[in-house]
């Protein structure tokens, strides 16, 4: 092997890499928050909404889960402007991520909600809690606790698939890598460094989610 690795030009671009990492973190966390909100609403609609709403939510879930994220991104960025909905690459990226996560997380949360024993909900009714209080405290919180591992690995998958938004030239970490690559022609080195950054990010996200669990969901339960 005669190839000489040259990382210095890649490391010289560290302010760009740092900025890209920050954008990826920001994009992922925002999409996670909004997507979770969408998912909770959809999970509520799917478990206790009227028939037509369940039908719409099911269609949304199946449509998103059976098409690639890349195609969803193209649809939001290229196809929707054709009918008058224009947005920046960054917004299009965020919207596709929220819509994507929403569908996956709905199914996960629904599974958690359905695992709540009926007696627990009846106990809530017996305590004269209001409907939203029952959903919030008796159903949602224990459900989130049950499905927490599945939910957080979905969050991490979302962060990783955010690299795909670089194809519409948003300003995330992979886009930065592509820019550095086209200036320095050190593609292998750039992508090695950026892959390592993603690996560090997924470890960091994992740690963050564990911390959130310890803080908010780590209460004793009977199971």
């Amino acid at each position, binding site marked *: *092997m005669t*190839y000489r690795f040259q990382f210095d030009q890649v490391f010289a671009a560290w302010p760009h890499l740092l900025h890209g990492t920050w954008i990826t973190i920001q994009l992922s966390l925002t999409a996670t928050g909004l997507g979770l909100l969408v998912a909770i609403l959809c999970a509520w609609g799917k478990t206790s909404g009227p028939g037509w709403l369940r039908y719409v939510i099911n269609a949304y879930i*199946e*449509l998103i*889960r*059976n*098409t*690639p*994220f*890349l*195609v*969803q991104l*193209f*649809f939001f960025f*290229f*196809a*929707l*402007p*054709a*009918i008058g909905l224009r947005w920046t690459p960054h917004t299009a990226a965020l919207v596709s991520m929220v819509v994507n996560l929403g569908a996956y997380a709905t199914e996960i949360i629904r599974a958690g909600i359905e695992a709540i024993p009926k007696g627990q909900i009846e106990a809530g009714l017996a305590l004269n809690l209001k409907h939203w209080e029952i959903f919030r405290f008796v159903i949602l919180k224990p459900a989130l606790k049950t499905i927490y591992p599945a939910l957080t690995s979905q969050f*991490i998958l979302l962060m*990783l*698939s*955010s*690299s*795909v938004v*670089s*194809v519409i030239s948003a300003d995330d970490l*992979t886009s930065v890598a592509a820019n550095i690559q086209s200036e320095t022609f050190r*593609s*292998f080195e750039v*992508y*090695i460094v*950026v*892959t390592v950054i*993603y*690996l560090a990010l*997924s*470890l960091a996200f994992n740690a963050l989610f564990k911390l959130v669990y310890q803080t908010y969901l780590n209460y004793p339960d009977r199971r």
Partner: protein
Amino acid sequence: MRTFGWSELWFIVAAAKWTIALSAIAFAGGTVVGLLVALARTGGIALLARIATVFTQIFQGTPLLLQLFLVFFGAPILGFEINPWLAAAAALTLNSGAFLGEIWRGCIQAVPRGQWEAAEALSLSYRWRMRAVILPQAFKIAVPPTVGYLVQIIKGTSLAAIIGFTEITRAGQIIDNATFQPLIVFGVVGALYFVLCWPLSLWAWRLEKRHARALTR
């Protein structure tokens, strides 16, 4: 300027064969890698288990797109001739190997302990213990999640479009560049993926329900 017509539609539909071919290769390769990973992680040899765990963590902890780039840009440097076809096949094989390995490890460990002990009590060798006792039972548990994972593989092949491999998504981009009718083009592209994935999702869902019923009996 071209408008979207039958020949454009056919161009995209015909590209589905490359999506299917790439998915099949990734699944076949992923099966081999995944089985090795699952066996290494359950076999009780610490070093092998460690290597397989690190392999899994790396491939599950980094984006598939970057794995694709590393193979595509890295292989020529390491002295291999590569084209988008090979790069996509190699990256998807390794990626699905990591995920399938993780799924199957769970399935192997889900076989009740008594079965392992019984096989050991019969003094079966490792090979026969796995072949005759553990793997057939693990296989039954593994079918529903594996079918479900096939959907992920098919969707993953869309990323090969980014390095220039002409499957459904890339075919859509080409037609979009010629017709400027993104709504219908990406509508068709999405619909094609849906037609490929939805039956598999349904099948996985039904298998899972049947399996759950078998367990409660």
